């Protein structure tokens, strides 16, 4: 009897070896012909697909299944979406959208102005986006092909928002239904293939040929895996299981040009010490602009950008170097000058420095020691609280910290970047000044051709007032399999428009 068991085990092992020998190479080898499937990865799974409930981070899945009111192209421009055209009133307080006809949700219901209104109102209610859409006072649908958005104050970043997750439109019948969390009903270029999807692990999208812009999405299937480990992602990229990924500069050479295409992304985010307590409620010293300026002068941006982060550039501004509001001259406002910073501290009455607590998160860990050392050089004694990332924003909003290091992703337009940097998590205490309020109001109301200069003035004010201590803007190499044509977008991880089929296929 025991022999039988042993033989079976041996036979199973032998069979296993034979089976392994017969295994074919991974189906998506980098050298395959024209791809029908695009394989991508995300680091964290979405919480759910319900309109307004989409969590932050990579938005590709959401914008694939839900068409948005407008679209954001790879240059960061607002282009037609469900709304085929739009116009502002002269005072920029009313936005009229002309809704495209003939579109249908995946349940067969028509996409009309009522659906646009219902979706936008739903998103406005939800905590994740209510602050971003707070300038909207009302949304109405005078007829089936017209939607009207009325604003409390002009908002230059509105079109950009309508071209993102905030502009996602779902079928009204199931907009808030429990089923929508895992079974989205949208009219986007793809539908979620539930049979090939395991929530939290793998999401499979099938092309929707009925979408008005289907020709911009050449892949029949898009498979998006949740891969948290960066090494696993890179291994998958090397074997062709993934078609796209970001890598470190020193890893680019591991991807031969015969099989892969590489390039460098546009600036993706700004990493800054956010001097949030500008009213001095927790850290009184931060109320004094000289202290904030001293902090800016104490930071050795060049050293941090080159030694701590591959592919980063030092910056003193909160806007993207690709935007019109950016000024190269402003990056010379606070040269690294410890003696100068000490002098400013003394002038502000803090010659002996002061002590502060900062949160140490997974995002800040690489910088914590350097920041503590550099601020320590001008007398600011930093101690860190270790904070799990998921608790970070709750603690910031709870008024625990006066300053903290965090990245803010560039959104693709100056208006969004600067409105975002002066609100929400990057201004948790709601600090402002009459000058800033006026500058922002002017910029948001400015005609399109003058917005660059107007937001440039906002940017200059923020730099002069040391609103934050920006340190670096990050870029990084990307790699695709040679079958894929990738156009680096101004707004990364927003939609599938950057992905096409390479001409060689």
């Amino acid at each position, binding site marked *: 009897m*025991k*022999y039988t068991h*042993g033989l079976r*085990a*041996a036979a*199973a*092992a032998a069979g*296993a070896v034979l*089976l*392994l020998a*017969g*295994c*074919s*190479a*991974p189906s998506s*080898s980098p050298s395959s012909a024209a791809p029908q499937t695009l394989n991508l990865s995300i680091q964290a*799974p*979405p*919480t*759910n697909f*319900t309109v307004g409930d989409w*969590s*932050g981070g990579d938005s590709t899945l959401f914008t694939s299944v839900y068409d948005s009111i407008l679209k954001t192209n790879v240059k960061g421009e607002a282009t037609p979406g469900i709304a085929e055209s739009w116009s502002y009133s002269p005072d920029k307080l009313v936005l009229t959208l002309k809704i495209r006809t003939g579109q249908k949700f995946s349940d067969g219901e028509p996409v009309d102005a009522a659906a646009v209104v219902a979706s936008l109102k739903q998103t406005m209610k939800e*905590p*994740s*986006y*209510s*602050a*971003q859409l707070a300038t909207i006072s009302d949304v109405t649908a005078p007829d089936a092909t017209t939607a009207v958005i009325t604003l409390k104050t002009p908002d230059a970043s509105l079109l950009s928002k309508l071209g993102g997750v905030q502009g996602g439109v779902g079928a009204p019948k199931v907009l808030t239904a*429990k089923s929508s*969390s*895992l079974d989205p009903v949208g009219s986007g270029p793809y539908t979620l293939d539930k049979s090939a999807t*395991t*929530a*939290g*692990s*793998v999401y499979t999208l099938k092309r929707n040929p009925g979408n008005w812009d289907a020709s911009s999405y050449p892949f029949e299937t898009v498979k998006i*895996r*949740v*891969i*948290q*480990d960066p*090494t*696993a*992602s890179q*291994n*998958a990229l*090397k*074997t*062709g*299981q993934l078609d796209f990924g970001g890598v470190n500069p020193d890893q680019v050479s591991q991807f031969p040009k015969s099989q892969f295409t590489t390039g460098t992304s546009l600036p993706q985010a700004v990493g800054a010490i956010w001097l949030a307590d500008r009213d001095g409620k927790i850290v009184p010293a931060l109320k004094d602009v000289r202290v904030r300026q001293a902090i800016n002068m104490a930071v050795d941006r060049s050293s941090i950008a080159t030694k701590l982060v591959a592919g980063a550039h030092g910056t003193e501004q909160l806007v993207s170097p690709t935007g019109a509001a950016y000024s190269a001259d402003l990056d010379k406002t606070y040269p690294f000058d410890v003696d100068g910073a000490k002098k400013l501290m003394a002038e502000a009455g803090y010659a002996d420095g002061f002590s502060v607590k900062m949160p140490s998160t997974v995002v800040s860990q690489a910088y914590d020691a350097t920041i503590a050392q550099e601020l320590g050089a001008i007398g600011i004694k930093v101690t860190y609280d270790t904070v*799990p990332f*998921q*608790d970070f*924003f*709750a603690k*910031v*909003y709870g008024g625990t910290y006066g300053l903290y290091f965090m990245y803010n992703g560039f959104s693709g337009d100056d208006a969004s970047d600067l409105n975002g940097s002066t609100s*929400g*998590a990057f201004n948790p205490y709601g600090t402002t000044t009459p000058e800033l309020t006026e500058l922002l109001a002017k910029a948001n109301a400015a005609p399109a051709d003058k917005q660059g200069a107007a937001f440039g003035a906002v940017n200059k004010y923020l730099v002069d007032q040391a609103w934050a201590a920006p340190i670096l803007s990050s870029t990084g190499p990307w790699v695709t399999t040679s079958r894929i044509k990738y156009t680096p977008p101004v707004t990364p991880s927003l939609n599938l428009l950057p992905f096409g089929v390479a001409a060689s296929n």
Partner: protein
Amino acid sequence: MIVYILRRLGAGLVLVFIVTAITFFLTHAANIPVANNILGAGATQDQVAALNAKLGLDQPIIEQYINWLVGVLHGDLGISYFTSEPVASGIAARLPVTLSVVVVSLIFTLVLSVILGVAAASKRGPLDVVLQGIATLSFIFPAILLGIILVYVFAITLQIVPAVGYTSLAESPSGWFASIILPAIVLSIAGIASLAAQIRGSLIDELGRDYVRTLRSRGISDMSILLKHALRNASGPAFTTFSLLFISLFGSALFIEKIFALPGFGTYAYQATIQGDLPVMLGVTLFSVLLVVIVNLIVDLVSGWLNPKVRVS
């Protein structure tokens, strides 16, 4: 026997109750800001309070626990706060992944450790030293390093297996095997050492007993004595080690799932713990305890079958 099984199952249910209760109350004591985590940075206190009410997190803790228990008794393990997926479906979707790796790993472990253990015990001398050396090496060799080497050689260089991901058995048997073979080998490496050592030690003891000398005097072949008699008697302790190994491998699956990006049970549990996804945490705890109880029961029954003395005691 039936009374014995029922008694063990009853004790197992008490264990399930105690462990899940401890998990529940410890999680609450950790005070994870679940609503803040779900709503993100822009949430106001009112919105957080509303979501807490919606999730039932504003109720007294005892009431929350009773509600969960009642749900479990009705077959409802709740819904994940973070993926909106029913917990039972989540476990069902991820369990085949982890079980595939663990079971194949156990087969490797069993086959190789029996071969190594029997050869070392029966031949002794230099072969024993060499085999023990191999077993010790496999015990001290970092499994994660082995994983990296195997991925580099077989997935990246030779491209005969995928580097990440899982293919279900129903979708493609060869794809399934290719997707789990490397994780299974990595997972089995330490187990082979401990099980082979256990088999070797037990077998040497058995081969020194009187009944072996008696069998030899009757002219029964060494091979027959070794495999038919000594190995059976030596298999009791080895089987206990084997069963513990199953539970241990199940627990170790997390690191292997991360290396190979497998959507398995370990990753599911880990992610839930990081986020404070209480329904999932309780679901995986419940299932894990049940698994331990069932495996232990099976071990006791099989041990009794292998050795009548155990049955009597």
